[in-house]
């Protein structure tokens, strides 16, 4: 089984902004190991001759022309927001990094 350190689990959790309990971390350490084990299998395949694929559709150069279209009404913009103040979205205070 691929060895995933506890630091990796904590790091990934931090990147995803997840707060894990000790039990969850234990479980995820094992599960991530199994996932990576599967990735290892794929890694074993010789792909030297294969170009990396980010799209399954063989297509390039899809553009739009620089033309202004219609935007949403501000009422619609904030309609789904959990919290809004006047025409702004309101979020818990974010400290500038």
């Amino acid at each position, binding site marked *: 089984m691929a060895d995933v350190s506890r630091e990796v689990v904590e790091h990934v959790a931090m990147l995803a902004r997840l707060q894990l309990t000790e039990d969850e971390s234990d479980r995820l350490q094992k599960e991530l190991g199994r996932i990576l084990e599967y990735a290892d299998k794929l890694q074993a395949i010789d792909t030297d001759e294969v170009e990396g694929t980010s799209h399954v559709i063989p297509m390039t*150069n899809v*553009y739009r022309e620089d033309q*202004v279209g219609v935007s949403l009404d501000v009422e619609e913009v904030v309609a789904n927001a959990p919290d809004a103040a006047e025409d702004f979205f309101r979020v818990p205070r974010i400290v500038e990094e």
Partner: protein
Amino acid sequence: MYGLAFPKCPLPIPNSRRKVIQMPMEPMIGLEVHAQLNTESKMFCSCSTKFGAEPNSNVCPTCLGLPGSLPVPNRRAVEYVIRTGAALNCQTAARCRFARKNYFYPDLAKNFQISQYDEPLTHDGYIDLDVDGEQVRIRIRRAHLEEDTGKNIHLATGSSLVEYNRSGIPLMEIVTEPDFTTAEQCREYLTQLRLILRCIGVSNANMEEGAMRAEPTVNLVDRETGEATPKVEIKNLNSIRAVYQAVSYEIERQRRAVAEGREDELFQQTRRWDEDKGVTVLMRRKETSDDYMYFPEPDLVPLEPEPEWVEEIYASCPELPAERRERFCTEYDLPRYDAEVLTESRQLADYFEETCKRFEGSAKMVSNWLMGDVMSLLNEAGITIDQSPISCEMLAELLRLIKEDVISGKIAKDVLATMFETGRSAAEIVEEEGLEQISDTGALESVIDEVIEENPGPVEDVRAGKDKAIGFLVGQVMRKTQGQANPQMVNEMLREKLT
């Protein structure tokens, strides 16, 4: 083993690395510049990019990141980055992709920014700078395309407000190699880059408005041993002057820390420029390299700019400000200062050249009038040269009237002001208001005699060889003729009469 390359908390510097770094060390500075592109619509949707609109009025499902929306790249934004690449001697990629930069911060509603990562649109260029007479080449690592973020307003009440009008405006990131060694070089680079971006019409590059932002990375390096201080990034710079001051300050701060062995002050960090205090202030330590989990953007297909298109963009790259400045010095025999001022804007430089074409006289005269009276009229009215009511044909005509002694330079200033106000031609104004210069000896003679009569003192002085006094007498004649006398002629006639 899937190990980790980051410590979890600030680490003390191990003793093994605590050695005194030998002076002298040279500054090593890199610059990252973000410039908003001058497009009508956003990068991936058709919302307007107009500045100063009502909050959240230029947003749509795509720039709000609503489920089911899909981005489509703005062709003009791609063209502008390629054009910038052409101006900065870069190579444009035959194929490139967009990437997702993932992070948690509400300035983008999607939780990621569409950017470019390992495949920038253009790369490996350079810019040559003239810094106080020294030629410096700065290598450009890359210029890539991404989307701008929204704006946050932090309230005292413990919440923040977010608005997304700016979110999705096309943003170009230009990254240099760490080739700068002085703050002066950084200043010159930003000055030239701004001129270039304006000249090629891709960005208004106004730092005060946030349309251009610069982030320097500063450290010191011993070029012989390769030993270096940790890199420091500086943020919150709203002008070229601020960049210059912050970089100067930071070089000094690091130098002093090295010289005085205060290595606890030397660590990888981000600092903020405090404009009022004139110092850089620690914002945060950087224990880890940023982990943005980049991956290819699955909603966008790769770009393969057509070679014909790219060639066309490169071929149509206009003469850049630095070249034009040199040409103005040689072709028009202008002083360097004039050439610099005139090439500050492409429109002004065009206007100058167009006027020169229409005026059979000295280019320096065109330059003087343009930089002096024309510019001050424009500044007073708060408009730019391309909005001037005085066309280059009209200015050329005015200059011709001066050159042919039809009007004096002094009268010409008033005529110019009237032209500016009314849009009428110089010849028309001169004719209607009877402003022709008096170059008729007969007409001048009587005025000169009057002046000699009325000013015996100065007349004696001139006769006694005090040359200065003649200026006074010329001035008197000019006054009596309301500035319409030809001063050159008055001068000559006075000399003839008095010596």
